[in-house]
């Protein structure tokens, strides 16, 4: 059958997928790399020399690192105990709180930043309130501190969800055993629970770090001069002194190298902690006693409340009256009327681009997962590796690579909807593949063999037996992908134009123009869309588990 294997349908699928990757991922990246080393057809290192010799860029790099590390630590510190409390103890209003947590990390990151500026900016509601009480202005939210607060409140829900997932696999008997040996309470949290969740905590740390490092909207809105890497890439690309693609490319290459190194370090670290758990008896939530109970509830409500506050505030603002660009007392639907003209196009684009991207991502992910799990070969290993590349590439870099790759003949795609679809596919696919692979690994291959022995061809067996079994898992993954797709900013901001503007990009445009009312109105529409999607997800996914 070795010969037969080379000939069958799946080999064709492998080749097609590989070709797709080569065209839409490898080719733009190679062009990016070339652009960073080429000037007028000559090899040059001048862009890298410029980057490393100018202390301004070095400082920005340092800023990005400081801020990503700080955000990661704060997110872990906030999210891990929250996951522990939610899984160990009975919390009042659990379901609602969980929905809010998911909502927080699903909403577009920069909306949070924007709302925080409204609340705690120089003229923010809370700032004024505090000033009235203490008699002088409280410390500014802008700069490093603000970015870390906003990013951490945005990203700790990720930690919460991943660690919660890990805790669900911890067998209750492990906790009982440690209790037997006299380790309880806080010391059990540090000596037993944390080590058991270590692989997940490391994975969460990587995810948070990558997101913080690549985040573009937050530092832009709340940084006020605190420059970070993605902002530089963007500025160099659309610089006031004329666009400098080559230098932007060089900065992008540096960014990729950094994220790749971080990725490898994390891999190395998590390999040292790798073990698998499967709980026969999952932890049962108990009611905490007395003061502990109060503190646990207080902690949970305050943290989740803080994370959710910006969203609520934005929705509230959308109904306030505006005059010009500022809010005035009173309420109305004026902001909605202002955006009514742009809204249909933005919503249509959001749906068209989102659905196309989602369909492509799901189809590719299922096929690739199948090839990787069931058809191990060198070719498919290559696909597996290629599919993980986008994991380490910041969104803005994906955007720039695509522009550099497809802005000239033979293939001009810039300005089209298609290139936005491609960008979103590239961004989402590693996550969807990982979750599809996990689902497929749970499905015994014998089911497929049974179908074949009953007369199915290989393709029929795949679509009649395997795909239906993957369906519920893939569907719930798809809804999450959908939410991240409609809230994606980093790539879109480089690739979009008037005709391909989406809701998220429309909000961004309004925010940069300083039109707070319309921005809030659009953000509310987007939030409603997100909430609806999540509610559908809750309905569809039987186990109510969210994975990334």
């Amino acid at each position, binding site marked *: *059958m*070795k010969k*037969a*294997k080379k000939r069958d349908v799946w080999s064709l699928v492998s080749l097609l997928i590989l070709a797709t990757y080569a065209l839409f991922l490898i080719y733009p990246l190679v062009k990016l790399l070339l652009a960073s080393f080429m000037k007028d057809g000559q090899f040059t290192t001048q862009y890298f020399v410029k980057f490393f010799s100018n202390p301004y860029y070095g400082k920005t790099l340092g800023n990005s690192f400081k801020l990503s590390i700080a955000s990661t630590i704060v997110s872990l510190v906030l999210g891990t105990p929250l996951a522990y409390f939610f899984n160990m103890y009975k919390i009042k209003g659990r379901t609602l709180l969980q929905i809010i947590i998911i909502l927080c990390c699903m909403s577009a990151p920069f909306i949070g930043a924007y709302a925080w500026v409204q609340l705690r900016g120089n003229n923010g509601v809370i700032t004024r309130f505090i000033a009235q009480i203490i008699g002088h202005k409280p410390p500014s939210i802008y700069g490093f501190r603000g970015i870390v607060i906003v990013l951490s409140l945005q990203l700790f829900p990720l930690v919460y969800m991943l660690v919660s997932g890990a805790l669900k696999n911890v067998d209750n008997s492990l906790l009982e055993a440690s209790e037997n040996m006299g380790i309880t309470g806080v010391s059990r949290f540090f000596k037993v629970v944390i080590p058991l969740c270590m692989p997940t905590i490391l994975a969460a740390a990587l995810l948070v770090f990558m997101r913080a490092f690549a985040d573009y909207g937050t530092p832009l809105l709340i940084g006020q001069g605190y420059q970070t890497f993605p902002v530089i890439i963007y500025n160099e690309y659309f610089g006031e002194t004329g666009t400098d693609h080559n230098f932007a490319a060089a900065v992008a290459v540096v960014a990729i190298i950094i994220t790749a190194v971080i990725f490898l370090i994390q891999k190395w670290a998590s390999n040292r902690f790798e073990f698998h758990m499967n709980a026969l008896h999952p932890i049962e939530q108990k009611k905490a006693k007395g003061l502990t109970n109060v503190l646990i509830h207080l902690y949970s409500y305050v943290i989740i409340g803080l994370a959710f506050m910006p969203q609520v505030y934005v929705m509230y603002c959308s109904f306030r009256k505006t005059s010009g660009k500022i809010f005035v007392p009173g309420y109305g639907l004026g902001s909605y009327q202002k955006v009514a003209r742009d809204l249909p196009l933005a919503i249509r684009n959001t749906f068209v681009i989102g659905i196309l991207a989602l369909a492509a991502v799901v189809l590719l992910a299922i096929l690739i997962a199948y090839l990787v799990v069931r058809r191990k070969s060198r070719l498919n290993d290559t696909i597996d590796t290629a599919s993980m590349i986008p994991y380490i590439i910041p969104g803005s870099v994906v955007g720039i690579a695509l522009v550099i790759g497809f802005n000239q003949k033979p293939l001009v795609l810039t300005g089209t909807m298609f290139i936005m679809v491609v960008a979103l596919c590239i961004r989402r696919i590693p996550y969807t593949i990982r979750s599809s692979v996990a689902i497929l690994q749970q499905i*015994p291959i*014998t*089911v497929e*063999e*049974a*179908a*074949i*022995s*009953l*007369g*199915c*061809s290989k393709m*029929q067996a795949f679509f*009649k*037996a395997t795909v*239906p*079994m993957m*369906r519920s898992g893939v569907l719930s993954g798809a809804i999450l992908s959908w939410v991240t797709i409609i809230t994606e900013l980093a790539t879109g901001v480089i690739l979009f134009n008037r005709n391909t503007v989406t809701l998220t990009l429309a909000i961004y445009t309004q925010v940069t123009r300083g039109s707070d009312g319309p921005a809030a109105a659009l953000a509310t529409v987007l939030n409603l869309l997100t909430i609806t999607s999540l509610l559908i997800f809750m309905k569809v996914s039987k186990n109510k588990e969210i994975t990334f």
Partner: protein
Amino acid sequence: MSVNIKVKNAVKKYGDNTVIPDLSVDIREGEFFTLLGPSGCGKTTLLRMIAGFNSIEGGDIYFNDKRINDLDPAKRNIGMVFQNYAIFPHLSVRDNVAFGLKQRKLDKATIREQTDKFMKLMHIDEFADRMPERLSGGQQQRVALARALVIQPDVLLMDEPLSNLDAKLRVEMRAVIKEIQHTVGITTVYVTHDQEEAMAVSDRIAVMNLGEIQQIGSPKTLYQRPANLFVSSFIGRTNILQGKLEMNGETPELVLEGGYRVPMENVQEKYRYDAPVQVSVRPEEFVISPDGEGVRAVIDDSVFLGLNTHYFVTTAEGVKAEIVQESLIDSILPAGMAVTLQVKREKINVLTEDGSDNILTGVLNDKQEG
């Protein structure tokens, strides 16, 4: 229509690792044939080669006169039952059973009729509209069997179908399997590592070890006249004693520990010379006497199991042995008691010193050489 299966010089390699070096076997039309061996012996590999899920690196496999090496698994017309049942979880019991018929594009009435027939045969008709997750393991196995048989395959292949069931259900299901195989009369290849299960269901058994067939024969043959040391210890329990074969004139005599001599009339001609041997004595092939000629031993412990009583003894030279005796109405022999052991000479087996061959006559082995 049933077929006979011929495997000729089959070779299976995973990379450089040869799992089956050279295996030949003839499986007769309509028989219940079992591949038995410890895990890793290549039995499932061979089954999957017949099914078409494993590639064949050398040799040929025939169904009747048709070479099937390169035939797509879907076209071999086999029914297969898997260790984990491989029931489609998204289809009802009826749809699971009907899956293969629908695939064959039969008309609706025939599908309905055949599906009903086999569900009835397997006593699962009352669950027809249930989803599989609401079935017990035994019921799922019945669905798997019905699904495999309804397509009227030429061959039924079963890969450790009972290993996921509990002990009681396992015994029940092997009766069901044996009965249904008998009713349908289909050539069946069955894989298991459980020798008792193999003996209960099979017409013939091939005992495998390290990718090679050791012996093929009926359960009775394998138990009573194992071809070598591996078969004798894998099928049932046995005690292995060291001894010598000595010619006393024309009569070969087995000399056991302490000079206990047992005349053996049934030694093959070619082995009638003085040589060290290994002796396989099953627990029920010992006779315990208070004294007289025999191997001297001391009783260490006993276990009363109702029908039988097991004794654990140590001989004078320190060899440990297990003995089974029908329980007697008088008291059990106490630990520490000195006894003499005799062997039932017509039942015991004498093997060459390296254990590779049984030197007695009457060993039947359908295994093909080369």
